[in-house]
């Protein structure tokens, strides 16, 4: 590998740096640097730098008008001991994650299995079922959701036909969060496609052998499909969970965190602290707590994966 890197380069005069091996290595590093530079600038200037600054800010009070003032651990102490909205938003978000993610994955798996039954037209159907995932996060869908689940909306009209009187669903304390969960579960397209790819990798011989042994469909599902699909389930679980923790737009537009803070998602609370109240220091501390919560949840899933994720020698999807 090393040798071919040393062949003369067109863009620079050959002989320019073609002396020792060391010089060649430097040259290669420089070429690599030129390719990497867009990302390196972004990584240092927009990720690492801001993270360090944000960590510093989390120990200050800063309203963007005066210079930040150092307050030590005050922000963190207040978060954990004296901020009922933090507790509320964390509870709301955890509830949302714990309900919406498994529902979404179950739904995605169910539909993926339907698509994998070998009937004609499944490619077309997959696309059809994917549509909500493309546009589900848009303002337009939020507008439509508000109408459909409103007092005079489509849902209540349907219920009215059965003599049931509905509510203004998204402003009812018990149902508001379910309106949002439904919206998120509705966008089950990408886990579905990933499940489908996983299902297609399961060798059909396994099912045939099980059939010969007289295994029921039920048995095959739990003894072949699910175990071989665990790496994909694991992957979907981690990604959907991280996404669910960051849910913002829907709550901001549809329920505005209400009623009585029943849908005050963590990301929404953080946004308000930062961009409505301009408490940049406090909001930075909130962001770091969120990062720790997400890291902890991810760590727990990784840790538990040794118990339930099945890896074939080295196969499976990463």
């Amino acid at each position, binding site marked *: 590998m090393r040798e071919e890197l040393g062949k003369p380069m067109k863009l620079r005069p050959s002989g320019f740096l073609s002396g020792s091996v060391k010089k060649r290595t430097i040259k290669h590093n420089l070429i690599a640097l030129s390719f990497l530079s867009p990302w390196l600038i972004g*990584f240092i200037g927009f990720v690492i*730098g801001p993270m360090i600054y944000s960590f510093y800010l989390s120990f200050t009070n800063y309203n963007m008008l005066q210079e930040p003032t150092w307050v030590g651990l005050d922000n963190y102490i207040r978060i954990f001991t004296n901020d009922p909205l933090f507790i509320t938003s964390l509870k709301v978000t955890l509830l949302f994650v714990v309900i919406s993610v498994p529902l979404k994955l179950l739904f995605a798996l169910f539909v993926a299995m339907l698509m994998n039954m070998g009937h004609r037209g499944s490619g077309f159907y997959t696309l059809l079922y994917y*549509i909500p995932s493309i546009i589900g996060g848009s303002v337009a869908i939020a507008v439509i959701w508000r*109408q459909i689940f409103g007092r005079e909306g489509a849902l209540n009209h349907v219920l009215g036909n059965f003599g049931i009187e509905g509510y203004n669903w998204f402003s009812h304390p018990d149902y508001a969060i379910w309106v949002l969960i439904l919206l998120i579960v509705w966008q089950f*397209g990408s886990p579905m496609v990933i499940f489908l790819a996983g299902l297609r990798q399961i060798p059909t011989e396994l099912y045939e052998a099980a059939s010969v042994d007289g295994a029921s469909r039920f048995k095959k599902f739990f003894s072949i499909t699910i175990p071989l699909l665990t790496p994909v389930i694991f992957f979907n679980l981690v990604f959907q969970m991280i996404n669910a*923790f960051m849910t913002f737009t829907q709550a901001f537009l549809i329920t505005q965190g209400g009623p009585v803070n029943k849908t005050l998602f963590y990301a929404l609370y953080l946004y308000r602290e930062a961009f409505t109240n301009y408490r940049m220091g406090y909001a930075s501390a909130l962001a770091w707590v969120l990062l720790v919560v997400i890291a902890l949840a991810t760590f727990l899933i990784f840790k538990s994966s040794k118990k339930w994720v099945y890896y074939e020698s080295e196969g499976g999807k990463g």
Partner: protein
Amino acid sequence: MDNRKSKRASIIYHTFIIGFGLLMLYPILWMAVSSLKPEHEIFLNSASLIPSEIKWENYVQGWSGFGKYGFDLFFKNSMIVTSLSVVGALFSSSLVAFAFARLKFKFQGALFACLLATVMLPMQVTLIPQYILFHNLNWVNTFLPLVVPAFIGGSPFFIFLMVQFIRGIPRELDEAAIIDGCSWYGVFWYIILPLCKPALVTVMIFQFMWTWDDFLSPLIYLQDTNLYTMALGLRAFSDPDNLTAWGPLIAMSTVSLIPQFILFLFCQKYLVKGIATTGIK
């Protein structure tokens, strides 16, 4: 006998899938149909998907927007932001991915680990310091905070996707070119890039979909109504405090989704493949 049974199973299957699919797509169909209904009918018989007459008035009224701001302006702004971001994403992801997939350099492993770590990083952590940074650069109320990040690898996901793709291209091709005296820049431009077309299309689609949809960044960075994107315009239009007519609002919601639909129709092949191989979103 057996044949008849499988035929019946097939009919049940298709009926179920289509019926269920229609239920899934109901909100979208409802939106498209309601945008053509006369205003008073939207609430009168709101669940129905059949308008008594087709009216284009909602579109005409909606397109003219509110105050002196029309949706032509918001549409144009969205187009500018989205197309620049797409160019940026293609530029940065292909260059950086080439380095990771083909070159050997110092700290390669560590840097790749950094890249992967940022894929999982919640954006909330960098949101506030980035805002302060852009504020200090006087970039608030310009398109720069929405566009520049794409040019400097703002979506590590895309880089990762491209790395995976380039690794699948046989190395013999670039080795032969190098022996023929081609530079690494030449290898990138003449050999790898043309072969990356499917991956580049995938990057383009996702960057387009996400930027077009994006709400949080425009919300934070664009306060001047002249700069509003479709998402912000629609939100201002739908503000419960000065709620305008539902008809035009639903019509403009429909319009806001049209570019995504067109892209979806033309590129669905790449889209589904892209998700299956990378697990995007």
